[in-house]
């Protein structure tokens, strides 16, 4: 089975029903996407397939068609994406475990809607749980990233 992740091609030998999450984590050692629930209820495992957000814990690896982007492919500590920069600026993370998924969802939202309303943020982001309750700062960071991206 072939898989393209963050610009790199991989060859995989796994069962077709293996969720993308476990192929990324345990086969390819890409650990940014996190395991939280396994049933598409928390968003910790969110990645992009062709730019669209997907809960990788509930998406069979054999069903992937297109390129997978994980948080590692979005930006790195030395070259962060604007959304990641906004996350740092607003000091969003507490335990941080949900934040890969939050950032991937937020990025997908801003790709679709560069200037989301509060209601649109609520709706789009409510699939991502944060047990540390960082929601006020997630909201602030999304707004900051939105302005930054629009300024270009």
């Amino acid at each position, binding site marked *: 089975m072939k898989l393209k992740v963050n610009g790199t091609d991989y060859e995989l030998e796994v069962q077709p029903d293996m*969720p993308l999450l476990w192929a990324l984590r345990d086969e390819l050692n890409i650990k940014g996407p996190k395991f*939280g629930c396994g049933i598409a209820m928390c968003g910790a495992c969110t990645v992009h397939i062709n730019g669209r957000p997907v809960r990788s814990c509930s998406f069979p690896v054999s069903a992937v068609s297109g390129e997978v982007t994980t948080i590692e492919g979005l930006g790195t500590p030395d070259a962060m994406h604007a959304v990641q920069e906004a996350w740092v600026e607003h000091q969003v993370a507490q*335990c*941080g*475990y949900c934040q890969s998924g939050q950032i991937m969802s937020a990025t997908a939202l801003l790709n679709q809607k560069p200037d989301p309303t509060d209601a649109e943020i609520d709706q789009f982001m409510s699939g991502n749980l944060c047990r540390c309750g960082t929601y006020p700062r*997630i909201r602030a960071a999304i707004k900051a990233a939105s302005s930054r991206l629009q300024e270009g």
Partner: protein
Amino acid sequence: MGRAAKITRRTLLVGSAAIAGGVIFGYWKYKQPYNNPLLANLKDGEASLTPYVRIDQQGITIITPRAEMGQGVHTTLAALVAEELDVDLAAINVEHGPASSAYFNSALLEEGVPFKPTDHGRMAEGVREFMRVPAKFLGLQLTGGSTSVPDGFVKMRTAGAAARQTLLMAAATKLNVEVASLRTHDGAVISADGSVLPYTELASVAADIEPPAEPELKPRSEWRLLGKSLPRVDVVAKSTGTAEYAIDVELPGMVYATIRRNPRLGGSMNGYDASAAEKMTGVKKIVEFTDGVAVVATNTWYAIKAADAIEFDWGKVEYPSSTAEIYAQFEACFDDKYEDSQARDDGDIEAALIEADVLDVEYRAPFLAHATMEPMNAVALLQDGRLDIWAGNQFPTQVKIDGETLTGIEQDNIHVHTTYMGGGFGRRAEIDFVRQAIEIAQQMPGTPVKLTWTREEDMTHDVYRPAAIARFRGAVADGKPSAFDLRLATLSVVESQMGRYDLPVGGPDLSIVQSAWEQPYAIPNYRVTGYRVPAMLPVGFWRSVGASQNGFFHESMIDELAYAAEADPLEMRLAIVSHEPSRKVIEAVADLSSWGAPLPAGHGRGVAFVYSFGVPVAEVIEVASSDAGIRIVKVWVAADVGTALDPRNIEAQLQSGVNFGLAAAMQGEITLEDGKVQQTNFHNYDSIRMNQAPPIEVRVLENGAKIRGVGEPGTPPAAAALANAIFAATGERIRELPLNKHVRFA
């Protein structure tokens, strides 16, 4: 105020054994430091001047020996050292460090004394000081009780100052000049002629110098880092997916495991059939451990699939098997036989209640799960008489003890690598999952094993926040409470947890009455009695412990009395509050929330004030009631931490605490049927989400006598403030959690 409260059990909370230990060893021994654990593994050219600082050619590392679970403790503790050491926070490394009794938590036991925490009299302070002795002998490196900052405030600054002094002496030796002619700046010693000697180059000379025991600390006016909002040391890693949690640890040749245990908590396994599972793809081995079975595979997913295919015959358990039966047992415990403490008994409550028009009500709070975002997991490798463990845990010294018991390997050869934690909330003060990883690794020597629990395993095998029942009688006179009689029945979390660790416990468990008996209110007739329900299912420390339920009970009752007295709920609290810093937080939240200003139709405001972990916190919540349900419009919080080290992080912790409390208050409930926990994942044990999460405005005050930690105190007032707001908006008084049993949330 120096009077110790009446205690109906034998001794203080920590128990006579621990106290006796302190007495037998004597004070001189207490003064002797533990060995510096960093000295054991130093390489050439490295120096460790205190257990908290390691310097080598590459750089400076500060050991922050408390669990980083999200509360920002690594940043704050590192800043305490960096402030005195005179280094830039961005230029140093920060590590959890090894498991060692040298990192014992001396603040942990102070709250267990039978004095109100607002009592700073000589007797109370003397007993608290004394508690540092058993704390040291127990040598517990434990994160909890919002103690990291109070425990580290002097200790960590002293470590930084001692290291700096030593480096100055090293430079003086090297340059053959007087120490007084030297100063430090940004990680280097600067000589009178302006030459710069980086600390890293002084390490080997400094290693031979005895650091001063009691170096002078900077006055607050000279602080560069403390008192300011600092960027978290972990924030870039946590925003780029590069922070390593135990679940991310990867070692060559690693195998991946998951487990199954009796869904009836603590029940036995009569037998199992793994014949189908054994043949499944990726399965390497199926092994038994103390109370269950582990599947080891080449991928966690294969392990989970195979575990699902095993048929089990689980044993029954002794505890009552349904929520209804459990509550019936709780009800039966309102009896002298089960009395645990009567820590407050002011005035003559019985007489006061005979004459008055009495409010007589019952409140309930359910069992709750911790549901940390990162499910329990650990990595273990047993090889050539050495055991390595990678785990996110709040109690590394206990991991060593249990590792030795399980494997027979001496503690010197057990290495605990503490990683970042995807949430703790008290759950990671347990080490059941670490023990399991060790047991599996024992059956696969030489192979690193990563054990990951499924969310289902995590939700159904927690140590739960105990359910509780509160019975209350109260009366009012002249617009104020005249009688307040609160009886609380719940399980003892101290008994349950310490039992799992075989640690000495005696005396009453004041967490049963925490944030009920010691609230700084003056009510002439005021009694709080705790009843201990005999142990049944395992219960544990859950963010803010007893205050999590008692805050709801106590502050709902105060609110009921305010309405009974036809008084404004906030004004009435101001009329009875007996502690100045507490009064100021209530005033601050009134100001912040424009308490009393007119509200739109259908809106209501509720207030709650809870004193917990030494921190007075007042919260106001505004709700809007409509056909869609109840919507939380906004939350205002005022809290007094004594000394605010990092204002932005304190704000984050209070917001986090509020959301944690709201999540539980709105919908959190663990129920049992046939002895099994019914909730299995986030679809039936949900949390607050973005669409319901309110803006939370925070004001931090510094009037308290001591510096305090703030990881927990934001949680206790949230449920009561919300229930009180719902009452204000709808007229419905809800006396049972979760609130969604009675109202719908929009």
